[in-house]
């Protein structure tokens, strides 16, 4: 858009605008950096001998078998969960993006209803219990195997791809699986990355379903262990032997756990960031 430069009112306006944006930037960055700053504090009382910055809290956490175990569980849930999410969502979205599919409207309505109505926590708990899934990792990934929102944005994306491409491949004798794999998926990279990121974040961040369905401590993923560290419930496990077992973990340990839990996501975020706004807009302004 073209804007007239130069007038005094305009300069004041621009100044205010940029000041506001910088303020937003600071307000967002300061809390996050403060977490990192606390996490780098030395674990022992500062005196002349100890440095100002230390990775002691990280080292101590990474030496805790229970923390490593939780990290492993989280990775298993992440890989297993996202694989399940993507396979189910892509296959369903591909089938439902074909307008000629008989019964498509009924099936979409059937799916949409679950988006609008939630029977609540207790029936879901009883279902998992009666399926015999309590205290197993599948109980954490199966209930959210398909997100209706992600399914809908993927359907919308696939519908916007030119239908003639699939037609041409089919005339040449390609099966539907081949059309999906060789024609549609290569064209769907932005939506696959977006939906994949959403699913990955959901799986990585999930803490309520593990609390609800798992009681075996060896199965707990990182966020649940982080919650225990933060609320000092199991503080004894996270401080080393020569300190008193009953004291709460030092703040450095708590914040190092926060950083370590967030780190894997932070590493993929910049790489994938440019893709997802497109995906969000597609979902938001769907036709």
């Amino acid at each position, binding site marked *: *858009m*073209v*804007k007239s430069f130069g007038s005094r*009112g305009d300069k004041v*306006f*621009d100044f205010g*605008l*940029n000041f506001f*944006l*910088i303020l*937003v*930037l600071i*307000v*967002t960055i300061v*809390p*996050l950096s*403060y977490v990192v700053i*606390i996490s780098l504090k030395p674990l022992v009382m500062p005196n002349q001998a100890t440095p100002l910055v230390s990775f002691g809290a990280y080292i101590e956490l990474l030496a805790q078998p229970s923390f490593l175990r939780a990290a492993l569980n989280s990775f298993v849930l992440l890989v297993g969960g996202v694989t399940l999410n993507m*396979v189910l*969502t892509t*296959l369903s979205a591909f*089938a439902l993006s*074909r307008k000629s599919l*008989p019964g498509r409207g009924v*099936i979409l309505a059937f799916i949409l209803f*679950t988006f*609008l*109505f*939630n*029977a*609540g*926590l*207790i*029936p879901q*708990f*009883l*279902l998992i219990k*009666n399926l015999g899934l309590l205290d197993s990792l599948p109980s954490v990934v*199966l209930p959210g195997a*398909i997100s209706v929102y992600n399914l809908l944005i993927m359907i919308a994306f696939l519908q916007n791809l030119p239908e003639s491409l699939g037609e041409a491949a089919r005339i040449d004798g390609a099966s539907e699986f081949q059309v*999906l794999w060789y024609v549609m998926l290569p064209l769907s990279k932005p939506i696959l990355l977006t939906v994949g990121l959403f699913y990955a*974040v959901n799986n*990585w*961040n999930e*803490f*309520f379903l593990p609390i609800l369905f798992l009681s075996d401590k060896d199965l707990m993923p990182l*966020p*649940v262990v*982080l919650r225990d560290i*933060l609320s000092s419930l199991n503080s004894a496990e996270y401080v080393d032997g020569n300190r008193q077992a009953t004291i709460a973990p030092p*703040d450095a340990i708590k*914040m190092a*756990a*926060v950083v370590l*839990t*967030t780190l894997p996501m932070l590493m993929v975020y910049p790489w994938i*960031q440019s893709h997802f*706004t497109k995906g969000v*807009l597609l979902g938001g*302004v769907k036709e």
Partner: protein
Amino acid sequence: MLTPTALPTAKKSVVSRLVYAIWQHRTLYLMLFPGLLYFIVFRYGPLWYTQIAFKDFSPILGVEGSPWVGFKYILEFFNSYYFSQLMTNTLIISLAKLIFGLPLAIILAIAFAETRLRFLRSSVQTITYLPHFLSWIVMAGVLLALFSPSEGLVNKGMGLVGQDPIAFLTDPRYFVAILVGSDVWKETGWSAILYLAALMSIDPSLYEAAAMDGATRWQRIWHISLPGMLNVIVLVTLLRLGGILDAGFTQVFALYSLPVYSVSDIIDTWVYRQGIQNFQLSVAAAVGLFKGVIGLILVVVANRIARKVAGTGLY
């Protein structure tokens, strides 16, 4: 592959044509099968267990064997003193998030669209989208870093001017503000995307024409940008109102504690404690179902209004 023996000839009746069409799409149904199975088992399966909302559930008799009691539990809930407290907390937290979050997201989107410093714009965008991807447990850690009485940044700052530390996270006077503030901090950047998209779709010649006629930047925002976003604003507001009973379960669950139950216990957290921790499955299921039904009605009504007013709905 099977050979379609009787198929090409069967083009007479509607039924046989439908059968033919279904046969033609058999691979697609095969692809749809796992997804559909998921929805039947994990999304519709729970509906079977909603019956315990109307039963006196006993673990020995099981879901099917427990005796029916009709609306006993839901009426008991309506008459209990929890009802008004839970409803009040849920509505206050939900509405406050909407009232504070929505205008800020709109202002942020306008600032993104108006700033001439592209570098500033893209860095603020990248940074403000980030908190959306943090879990509420991680957020609990961030809030602890800011507000804990011992190490918290805010309390340290107040200490410099001689203030005594305040336990913000466990004080009922501040806790609702913490809930609302942290939600706004986490989600505003992300929600601005939608408004920004609306702004980007406004015809630039409108701004040029207004500038020719001597309109100031404020006037252009007021008369062009805001009307251009109006449909999205109406849509988002209506849908948020439709979900008003969802005050943010995972957030409250991750942040609350006994001292602040009085101001932060919402329907969902109560259902969790009553059902899972106190084993009162019937009353918890009844309250959860009540919330689900009201939620469904609100969303459907909100969607109707959105279609009428903004010309587009959620579905």
